[in-house]
């Protein structure tokens, strides 16, 4: 019985080969375009999150109370080195670093710009976020008074490698102090703050100059895969301001939510098109065969079997479209995952949003499972309307004049 239904469904699905091929092509192409768009958006978001994690906050960021609001160096964490050591001993902690950020003014012979001077340990930065990958020019060999500058800041101050830059700020006693640095490397991280307003120097180059205690820091950042570690840290250091990545980066959080909404809308539109496509083809196909269904009803093929058959026809077409679409999507997604989509022409625009100009796709199994379920659902749903037409028939309605 079911063999007969299956055989009829397959034969009828391909009875009009051009129509069936166009439908399959439509499903496959819509699906691959949608998945490439989805993969690129997810890739963009993932890249921004990755850069922010590596170049700045990690999964957990710790400040002294009031520092984030007032940004004064007196609100630094006094025993940062001790805390860093304690944090490293916690389970699931992959890496910890401390930074000291000082607000001030960076000046060159041609311009000056409000900037941050961040004192770091480059060895820790490398372990924390593979810092050297952000270096576009120069190297980490800074020598005496060497510094690293963000690409946008260097552009604004009209500076190149080996140019001199003066950084002016207040020291711990509120005196104005300046220090001359020579640029030894230029970085581009797509972290807007880092690229457009930051000078990076080794800790030892600045602590004494500003009058800082060697063990203090304005920020401690932690890398971990354990989402619950933040609770342990909060509990352990109640006097500090402990923040998760998403609390520290609300804009990225919003952006990720926007991408999810955007992807959902794209998904709904594409699935709507697929649904209308299958509905149109199945409706015409059923109307074409209404007499055949009348005959089948007359000789004892029940409406239930017709329903199975028609649904199977739609599902077969949908599934073939899905399989071809999966192959096409995987080819495009994989290519763009490896080689990326070069949007260098718009690099300034992308940089202003903290994005890299080469976009890489993400490939997630969820893309395919969700679209598989949606296509099956759309295929089944699309035959209900034409099936209602058959349901209303009596065999004589179609064959009255021919029995």
């Amino acid at each position, binding site marked *: 019985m079911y063999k007969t239904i299956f055989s*009829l469904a397959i*034969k009828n699905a391909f009875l009009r080969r051009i129509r069936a091929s166009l439908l399959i092509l439509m499903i496959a192409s819509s699906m691959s375009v949608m998945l490439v768009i989805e993969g690129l958006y997810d890739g963009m978001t993932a890249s921004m999150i990755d850069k922010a994690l590596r170049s700045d906050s990690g999964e957990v960021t710790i400040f002294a109370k009031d520092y984030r609001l007032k940004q004064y160096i007196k609100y630094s964490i006094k025993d940062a080195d001790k805390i860093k050591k304690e944090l490293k001993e916690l389970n699931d902690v992959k890496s910890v670093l401390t930074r000291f950020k000082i607000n001030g003014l960076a000046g060159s012979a041609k311009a000056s710009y409000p900037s941050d001077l961040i004192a770091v340990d480059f060895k820790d930065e490398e372990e924390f976020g593979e810092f050297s990958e952000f270096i576009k020019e120069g190297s980490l060999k800074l020598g005496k008074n060497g510094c690293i500058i963000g690409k946008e800041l260097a552009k604004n101050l009209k500076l190149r490698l080996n140019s001199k830059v003066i950084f002016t700020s207040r020291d711990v006693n509120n005196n104005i102090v300046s220090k001359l640095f020579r640029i030894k490397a230029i970085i581009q991280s797509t972290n807007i703050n880092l690229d457009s307003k930051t000078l990076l120097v080794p800790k030892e180059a600045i602590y004494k100059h500003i009058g800082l205690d060697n063990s203090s820091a304005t920020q401690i950042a932690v890398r971990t895969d354990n989402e619950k570690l933040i609770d342990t840290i909060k509990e352990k250091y109640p006097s500090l301001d402990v923040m998760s990545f998403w609390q520290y980066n609300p804009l990225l959080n919003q952006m990720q939510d926007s991408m999810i909404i955007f992807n959902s809308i794209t998904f709904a539109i594409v699935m709507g098109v697929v649904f209308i496509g299958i509905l149109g083809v199945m409706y015409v196909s059923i109307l074409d065969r209404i*007499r055949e269904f009348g005959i089948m009803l007359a*000789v*004892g093929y029940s*409406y239930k079997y017709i329903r199975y058959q028609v649904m199977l026809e739609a599902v077969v077409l949908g599934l073939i479209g899905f399989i071809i679409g999966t192959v096409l999507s995987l080819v495009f997604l994989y290519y763009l995952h490896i080689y990326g989509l070069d949007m260098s022409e718009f690099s300034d625009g992308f940089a202003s949003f903290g994005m890299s100009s080469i976009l890489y796709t993400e490939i997630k199994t969820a893309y395919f499972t969700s679209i598989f379920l949606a296509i099956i659902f759309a295929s089944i749903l699309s035959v209900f309307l034409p099936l209602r037409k058959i349901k209303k028939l009596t065999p*004589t309605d179609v064959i009255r004049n*021919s*029995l």
Partner: protein
Amino acid sequence: MIELKNIQKYFYKGEEREVHALKNINLKIAQGEFSVLTGSSGCGKTTLLNAIGLLDKVSSGEIYLDAKEIAHLSDEQKTNLRLNKMGFVFQAYNLIPVLSVKENIAFIMRLQGYKESDIDERVNELAELLEIKEKLDYLPSLLSGGQQQRVAVARAVATKPKIILADEPTANLDHKNSESLMEMMKQLNEKENITILFASHDDYVVKMAKRVIHLKDGEITEQ
């Protein structure tokens, strides 16, 4: 075997264009009969045949098959009854276009759950009898009218139903094919004891039938 009591059929009832197609029909058809419903065009032959085959609903009255009332069964039950007890031969053959001759003949057997070996045996037997053995793998569209009608007959008799209802089966056939078809139907009636009821105004069919039922304006006038 089949008994019709006070069958009435209206089309467009209550409307200005109302047609009273069957008027108080009472009829008994015994097992193994070879009968024909005849009369002029529009007299109600097809309507009566549709009513007996449960292809259309009657407005009132009862239809009994083996003493069981069948006119008021659900659609699903009627479909089952048609599948298991009745065979149909249509004027326009009405074969399933995507299935081969063999699959068309086997169609009802498969619906009834016959074993593939039994199906093969029966299909070959009927193909031999109806002289369509070389055409078994063809699609219906590649056959002549006479060959298609023979396939339709094979499909109708494959499961040995209790009754075969055939409306104008010779209407699209030439005289030679009509004779051959009627001869085969007669053989099936005699060999398999299948009740056969035609609706036809073909004189040859009327001449071959053992019982002739005349209809006029929706009423039986002579039987």
